[in-house]
């Protein structure tokens, strides 16, 4: 039997969709560590040069981002490869969910308007400003939404729903009323 190496398949191969300078695009698959927030999580993150944000917010340091959409759950995005080992050594509970979550970016002046066709929580920049993260649903899909700019969102979907979520938002962009 020849030597067999497993090659990754991207969750989404769709090309970006743009409408009125607003673009929906799949993001490259990065590292996602799901952290159970307990006493000591903040200190453990600080030792990695990161910080535990308040509930509903996120913190970035270099390439890495910690988003905390719920009180007891945080997600460490694109941290150094040895971050999991360091956190485990610090007694933290975590699960590597790099393959669970698939991220889409939705950026542009009509991004919030498109999302509002699906997303129940308030997306007004005064209520949900850049740097904030929250959980809700896109139809039946449980998602996490990170706003990383006034007109820039990252939406995290479970992998099995990624195609459906992308198609739904692409259709929404198409259906937005003309000005």
């Amino acid at each position, binding site marked *: *039997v*020849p*030597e*067999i*190496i*497993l*090659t*990754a*398949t*991207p*969750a989404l191969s769709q090309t970006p969709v743009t409408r009125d300078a607003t673009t929906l695009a799949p993001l490259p*698959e990065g590292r996602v560590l*799901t952290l*159970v927030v307990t006493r000591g999580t903040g200190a453990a993150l600080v030792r990695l040069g990161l910080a535990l944000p308040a509930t509903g917010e996120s913190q970035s340091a270099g390439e890495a981002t910690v988003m905390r959409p719920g009180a*007891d759950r945080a997600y460490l995005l694109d941290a150094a490869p040895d971050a999991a080992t360091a956190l485990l050594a610090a007694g933290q*509970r975590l*699960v590597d*969910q*790099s*393959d*669970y979550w698939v991220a889409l970016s939705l950026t542009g002046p009509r991004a919030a308007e498109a999302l*509002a*066709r*699906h*997303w*129940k929580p*308030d*997306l*007004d920049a005064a*209520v949900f400003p850049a740097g904030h993260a929250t959980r809700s649903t896109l*139809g*039946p*899909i449980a998602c996490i939404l990170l706003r990383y700019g006034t007109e820039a969102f990252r939406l995290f979907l*479970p*992998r*099995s*729903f990624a*195609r*459906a*979520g992308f*198609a*739904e938002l692409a*259709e*929404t962009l*198409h*259906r937005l*009323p003309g000005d």
Partner: protein
Amino acid sequence: MTGPFRLAGAAGAPIGFRFNGRAMTGRARDTLAAALLANGQRIVGRSFKYHRPRGILSAGPEEPNALVTLGTGAEAEPNTRATVVELHEGLEAFSQNHLGPLTHDLMAVNDLFSPILGAGFYYKTFMWPRAFWEKLYEPAIRRAAGLGALSGHADPGLYDRGYLHCDVLVIGAGPAGLAAALAAAESGARVLIADEDNRPGGRLLAEPQTVEGMAGADWARVAWDRLGEMPNVRRMPRTTVFGSFDHGVYGAVELAASGTPADMPRQVMWRVYARRAVLCAGATERPLVFPGNDRPGVMLAGAVDAYLERWKVAAGRRVAVMTNHAGGAGLAERLRAAGVEVAAVLAAETGEGIAATRGRKGLSAIRLESGRWLDCDALAVGGGWSPNLQLTGHAGARPVWHADIQAFVPGDSLPPGMTVAGAASGDFALPDCLSGGDAAGAAAAEALGFAPRPRVYTATGEGYMPAPVWRTGPKDGRAFVDLQHDVTVKDIALAHREGFVAVEHLKRYTTLGMATDQGKTSNVPGLAILSQLTGRSIPDTGTTRYRPPATPVTIGALAGRERGRDFKPYRYTPAHDWAVAMGASMVESGLWLRAEWFAEAGETGWRDSVDREARSVRETVGICDVSTLGKIDIQGRDATRFVDFVYCNGFAKLAVGRVRYGLMLREDGMVMDDGTCARLAEDHYLMTTTTANAASVYRHLEFVRQVLHPDWDVHLVPETDGWSQFSVAGPRARDLLARLVDAPFDISNEGFPFMACADLTICGGTRARLFRISFSGELAYEIAVPARYGNALAAALTTAGADLGVLAYGVEALDVMRMEKGHPSGNELNGQTAPRHLGMGRMASQAKDYIGRACAALSHVDGAEDVELVGVVPVDRGKALLNGAHILAPGAAATLENDEGWMSSVSFSPQLGHHIGLAFIRRGQARMGERLRAVDLLRESDVEIELVPTHFFDPEGGRLRA
């Protein structure tokens, strides 16, 4: 000019449209009703019950008569109110509810029988013979009475949904709404203002009043533009707020503008989350009730005014006016000023009422109570106004009666956060509407911490106090109260005589107010007439309860995108592309798409493929995508206690590196789910669930964690989507996997025995998990890799096992093999079975506490308390078994009393060469060898069966431990 009744000064470009195929011309800003009136179209439809000719009554959403079908073919939209349809080029409209031409409706014969077709006629008449109801009476009645017909085709229009948030929702963009929105918005609050009309202004468009020195319509446009300049305001014309729900949630439907392309949504259903709401929905004018009041040409006075002022259309050549307040004279003056002849101005409050009317296809004359006939082709009727307070009552609040305006107004008990202003609150004078709107908008903003600045508006306009006059003319005349449902004064009197004197009973007995217009113009006159009959006051009589939607909402808008293929999204497994490339036939399993079988060349049906797959797995090795099984990561110091508590069988002693089958019960002792749970580390488990119950089990576990044992250190992470998992089953399974696992992992039977689990790497370093578990009864494993490697893992298994005869198999073969092994599945774990029904009673621990223990001895299904799962084979092995068949004793009649149980799963077993089944049969375990019958009357099957143990194949389990 665009039509013989169009007056000078009309704005908007000419537009061509058709009504019942007749070409007509309207104007760009017309409603269909305005354009029809301008063209002299008096009859626009036939009434619901008596098929009487009906014309346009109103100029707004309250319209009971002018219901039309728009468009043709699949796009046809029935029951649309012509008074709110925006005219556009090429619009085609059709009248409804007639047999033959609109002007010569053959069903008008119903009207001849009207003396015997009163309220309750159907209930009393069609009682016998009973069998005639479904086959004769009901179809005949449905043909004779009704509205428009559905096209019979799927609606090709697109619908959407969305969510909006605001500080202050202003419902209505009339003078009060505009003032409220300005007050709130200028203080900095986030304002959403919605109005069902395509133009803002409300009654300002219909009456020649002035605001701030400007014509009312101009002021409305300026105010609207001012709101549009503010970034904190969202203006939503063509948007009807139809419901008020808990927690400040409002439902609204936004219609697309005319001319919107077909690939854009025609309606959007919005859920609006509002911290405060100001209801400025205006008021609806009521007609007066008098004999012959339903002829085309009888219109609401305010509508005559609106057609005159807004659309420059005369309601007739010679118009009479009758009101029960002082406002009739002003309308008459405006009509005269526009060149329309006024036949009479009647003050009903002084006894100048109408006793009869004439005109077969439209009003031609009225007879005064004095007996004098007056020629006229239109009659403007004003009976006062009812505030549009429906949204205040959706949460159950009752309005209160204000005798000075003869109307119900909102009471003190409003939905939280809602205030009411303008005519909706009973303020009918324009200056009061403006000041009330401003105050309400400011108060709403102030309550949220903003600092509004009060405004003072100058405006003309006065409110008229209607007299308590509801009807004129002789009492025995045929006078309609509810025009849409053809309910007359006589019907109300009959209801009163028969004891239906409560207003809710009156409604149900006569159908008053139950039509699509929800009695907007008829409810108050109806209960006023009832109160006259009973001698009670109107407030004592009360009003019916308001329920959403306040105006009709299409089913399409409620469904949004969720219809057809888009009803629910598909979920794809990580190896979906591989399965498709392998030629899999896919099946929906919940939201998932799963491979049901992989057909090969020459196979002529699904049985060929499934039989081959099941047989080959037991001979060589097969792989099956089981990624859809739910996976839940469980960690924490108390993880073992937790797992032990949620399963009924023991887990406390499960060693690290071992897997165990678990049965999970609900609190009521019934089986909720089954699966395996692997102990990956001292405080770390991975639970698998069935595909169907993945979400419900996770929810259940979170309930246990957060509510029942918040003191335990346990953490749950759903992991289903993170892994691609394959079952590798068959005698050569170990040989196949041995080629993929990285050294030094020992996959020998000794090194990795039955029910072992391990973290490992495969294919030169890819992270993986291996479980030695079997659903098929074969030597079997489940191997999992991170989801991104799903396609690659499947390809690797087929490549590496080519010389071993590896094959891909689908869920059908999986199901066949589990039945051959007697494993229960979804058909057996149906929510009504406990462990003892499944032959697993001994699994339920006696030595620990667990969820469901307290009720484990109970049964919740009458007659099924003592059923037990057994195997079944046909005595004549050539016969097929049918799922769902009921079990009867030989010779027993097929009655409920003789029912011995049911067949839950059946399959043809390629291994045994005949059908096998699993069945729940009363005391089945003690009846092995007994012969019974499996009877399916629907499919005309009656098969003699023999009860056997559930393990049809390899009962000793030697193969899975090999």
